[in-house]
């Protein structure tokens, strides 16, 4: 990237970050929380972009990393008094990284769809274990716990408000973005991209490709776990549903929708998909209420299954925007 492009990038980054920082002031409470959640799902999607977009591997195991991050945080928050934010982060990351290492060790021997299916099976194994081991995990009901305070022991301790939680999540996600961005531009990250472009050649010039893949999966899992911890802190519960492979599928969806290999694309994808879903779920009741204000009763309109138009719009996006929402900017964001 030329110096000028670099300057433009960082200026845009600063502007967007500043906008994101002040955005909650203009938003009602619900949307502040929703924005926080979008950032968290965006982080999950971003973590899987390391594999999909940079290494060329599609993982369906991210739900396991995400979920284990949650349960790791839950373990810390349930066992220590007072609940400690940093311990929750630590436990969650350790749990996610351990699982990621385990999954990576086996699955990276396989390629393409076989890799995807193996990671999927692994996440299902963890799902079944968590779902049925009621004594430890709460089973289907999951675990509920209280939110830790934003504290540095001996210095200060502030209970999270919606606003501070949002900023905290924004800080973590921004930090993660910067770290991941740096990783993708480090020699290591360049090797990953080289694997994506041409695995055999990468091996032939001397790189132990399998080991690189294992580390990539571990990093990806670590950040997915971080997203899990943030989700746990925001929502104060952990549930096996988050380990179910469908969550991995959603991460892939956010990636494709936003544009793979851009890191920010997946966040945009997550935002687009979640906002679209939220918007459509409100549309039909809204139409029905507008109609009834005009003296019309449209029975069934408010209950119209909004997932049908969601599905159709989604299909249309995939067909007509092959590069995803941010795909056009891929080269620019990637250099």
């Amino acid at each position, binding site marked *: 990237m030329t110096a000028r492009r670099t300057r433009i990038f960082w200026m845009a980054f600063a502007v967007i970050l500043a906008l994101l920082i002040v955005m909650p002031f203009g938003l009602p409470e619900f949307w502040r929380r929703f924005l926080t959640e979008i950032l968290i799902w965006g982080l999950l999607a971003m973590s899987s972009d390391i594999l*999909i977009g940079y290494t060329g591997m599609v993982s369906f195991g991210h739900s396991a990393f995400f979920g284990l991050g949650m349960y790791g945080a839950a373990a810390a928050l349930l066992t220590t008094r007072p609940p400690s934010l940093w311990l929750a982060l630590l436990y969650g990351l350790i749990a996610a990284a351990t699982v990621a290492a385990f999954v990576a060790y086996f699955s990276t021997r396989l390629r393409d769809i076989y890799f995807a299916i193996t990671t*999927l*099976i692994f996440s299902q194994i963890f799902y079944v*274990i968590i779902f049925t081991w009621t004594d430890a995990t709460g089973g289907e009901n999951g675990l509920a716990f209280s939110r830790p305070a934003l504290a540095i022991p001996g210095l200060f301790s502030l209970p999270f408000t919606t606003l501070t939680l949002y900023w905290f999540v924004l800080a973590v996600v921004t930090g993660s973005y910067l770290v991941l961005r740096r990783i993708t531009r480090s020699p290591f990250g360049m090797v990953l991209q080289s694997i994506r472009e041409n695995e055999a050649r990468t091996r032939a010039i001397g790189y132990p490709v399998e080991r690189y893949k294992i580390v990539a999966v571990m990093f990806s899992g670590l950040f997915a776990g971080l997203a899990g911890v943030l989700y746990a802190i925001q929502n104060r519960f952990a549930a096996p549903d988050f380990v179910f492979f469908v969550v991995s599928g959603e991460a892939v969806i956010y990636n494709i929708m936003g544009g793979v290999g851009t890191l920010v694309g997946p966040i945009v994808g997550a935002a687009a998909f979640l906002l679209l879903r939220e918007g459509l779920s409100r549309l039909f009741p809204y139409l029905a209420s507008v109609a009834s204000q005009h003296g019309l009763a449209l029975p069934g309109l408010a209950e119209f299954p909004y997932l*049908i138009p969601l599905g159709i719009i989604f299909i249309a996006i*995939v*067909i007509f925007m092959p590069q995803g929402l941010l795909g056009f900017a891929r080269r620019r964001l990637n250099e």
Partner: protein
Amino acid sequence: MLEEFLIQTINGIVVGMILALVASGLTLIFGIMDVVNFAHGELFMLGAYVGVVTLAGTGSFWLALLVATLVVAALGAAIHVTTLRPLLGRDPLNTILVTFGISLVLQNYALWQFGPVARKINEPFTGHFNLFYLEYPWYRLVIALLSAAIIAGLWLFLKYSTYGVWIRATTQDRLMAQAMGIPVPRLLTIVFAIGSGMAAASGVLFGPLVGVNHAMGLDWVLKAFIVVVVGGMGNLVGSIAASIFISLTESYASLWVSPSQAIIVSFVVLILTLLIRPTGLFVPTPK
């Protein structure tokens, strides 16, 4: 113990055959089109619903089976032409997403159209025989046999018919098939229709064992996917073998460990198989 073992063998084979029927449509679509069809479970479910409606109208199970297969096959063709053809030549990931969208639409449409109450398909005949301490319904064996017959029919179709030869040729080399004058776009639509029809047939056949509802496809689709990959994508025989293999593993495992652990056992076995034979268990190795 021996009794239980034999019973579980029969169970494993019966479940395996149903799974094989679901998976064979999937593997056909997968193998020839590179389409990972996430909507397969929904086509299975729609087949069952069309079966319910036809059965209510005509009273004939067999007619219901036929009508469901044809109607869903036609729907499959329509889905293919409108949503999957535009993706030809794109990354297969796109097809995963589009079929995910389709499954969202179909599932919610079924809920909207048919309502929340579980429906019933009555088996065409009742009756059972004694299997040690159990009464075993004949219908279960009939399903297994019918599944086998349908798969055999598919196999004969692939082996001998013009379209069958074309499908196999296209599976191996799509570009060359086209250069040989095989109308590949139309062929892909037909394959998707056949796969959809098979999903529907399995939905109707399986209907009498369970209730029919909008979420019934979910229980099969994940396992069917695993089976397709383990069997070697696009490999019909491999999928059948893998279906029976996974079902038997699960059945036997349930003799020794708790049911939920049995699922884990079968998953672990699957991962091991993949690690040993990375491109599927039963792939023929062309020289």
